[in-house]
């Protein structure tokens, strides 16, 4: 060691294979790496924060449209995905634990498990998106299933006016005997006005009660009556936010799976040990961050209006 005094006086170099030459020792390197990763996560928080701000603004303006829109998301799939992500977070945390122990086999197994749960999450998301596509609730015109009269499944024989009529979802929920859903133009379709009509009736019965917000009183009505087209536009805002937020989150999952592939390969090659495991720890931070985003997305997107209909509405 003493002979190496000079430009490359990195006294850990020969002993710690992961130590970069610009750092004094592993401790300093680990702190630098972890602060760099946290700076990245902080900007990710701001990145998602912009979307949460959009959510906050529009939900505070049109809470009932958000509640009604949310009630048509499948809380079972959303809740299942929450649990799946929590399990994957556990396996990720245990990966870090075993990387610190230098246990190669457990690392590889746990990384594969983490990837499996990540893939399950994306699969469930795909099921949900497909359901939205089939029901015409993708907010982009032309990006929904187009059902032509006389073609396709049993929906198609129904007349077109059913597509903008009120009862499609309700009929389906009632057991699907009247499978009224038709989406002839592939536009954003909305057929559930039960809850908002109930709330409008409550508001009219007691004009001074705080049931609808001022924006809702302006935004849902034409000539003093509930305007379904106007209300549907507000539900559409909710679906825009739903697709952008969950889509961006899913994109993070895809990136995370790529990261895990690399990490798994590196772990398989026995790269990590008690001295050098920061790549595992940092990938873990990313994975847990994505989990945290979903912890907030689940109640905010899937559950926000359930209590309005839970009492046997």
């Amino acid at each position, binding site marked *: 060691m003493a002979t190496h005094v000079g430009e490359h006086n990195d006294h850990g170099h020969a002993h710690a294979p992961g130590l970069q030459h610009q750092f004094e020792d592993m401790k300093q390197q680990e702190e630098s790496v972890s602060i760099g990763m946290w700076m990245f996560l902080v900007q990710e928080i701001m990145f998602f*924060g912009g979307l949460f701000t959009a959510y906050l603004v529009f939900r505070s303006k049109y809470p009932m449209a958000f509640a009604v829109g949310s009630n048509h998301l499948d809380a079972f799939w959303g809740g299942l995905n929450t649990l799946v992500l929590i399990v994957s977070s*556990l396996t990720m945390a245990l990966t870090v634990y075993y990387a610190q122990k230098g246990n190669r086999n457990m690392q590889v197994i746990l990384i594969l498990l983490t990837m499996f749960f990540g893939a399950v999450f994306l699969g469930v998301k795909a099921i949900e998106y497909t359901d939205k596509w089939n029901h015409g609730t993708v907010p982009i015109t032309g990006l929904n299933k187009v059902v032509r009269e006389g073609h396709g499944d049993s929906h198609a024989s129904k007349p077109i006016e059913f597509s903008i009529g009120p009862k499609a979802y309700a009929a389906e929920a009632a057991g699907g005997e009247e499978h009224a859903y038709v989406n002839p133009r592939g536009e954003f379709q909305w057929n559930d006005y039960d809850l908002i009509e109930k709330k409008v009736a409550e508001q009219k019965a007691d004009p001074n009660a705080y049931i609808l917000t001022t924006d809702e009183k302006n935004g849902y009505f034409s000539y003093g009556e509930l305007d379904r087209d106007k209300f549907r536009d507000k539900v559409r805002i909710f679906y825009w936010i739903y697709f952008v937020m969950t889509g961006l989150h899913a994109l993070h999952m895809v990136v995370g799976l790529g990261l895990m592939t690399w990490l798994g390969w590196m772990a398989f090659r026995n790269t990590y040990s008690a001295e050098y495991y920061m790549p595992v720890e940092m990938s*873990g931070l990313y994975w847990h961050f994505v989990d945290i985003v979903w912890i907030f997305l689940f109640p905010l997107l899937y559950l926000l209006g359930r209590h309005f209909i839970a009492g046997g509405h």
Partner: protein
Amino acid sequence: MAEHGTHDMHEQHEHEHMTIPKYLLIFGILFIGTIVTYLVALTDLEWIFPGANTLVALAIAFFKMTCVMLFFMHVYWSPKLVKLSAIASFFWLAIMFAYTMQDYLTRGTGVFGQ
């Protein structure tokens, strides 16, 4: 050499704070938190005050996030600068929410409102 050795010991010691039973405990808390979130969402709490459901859901979400950050992400044993970064990010987020909403919530719909 000796110095390097003590760092290693220090690191080892530091990460012994989290053991497998503790990881499982945190996992259990997160799991139960998810179930509670779901059950509370099906219960009408509007009689307490409007928006009570959302407040409870967010409170549980914050609690779960805190568990994940402190123990899965090891913030609890991290340098102060990491803790500061984590807290500061939420502070900035709060500023963004607050300044945005103080605009939107105070926009009238006319001279005398509705």
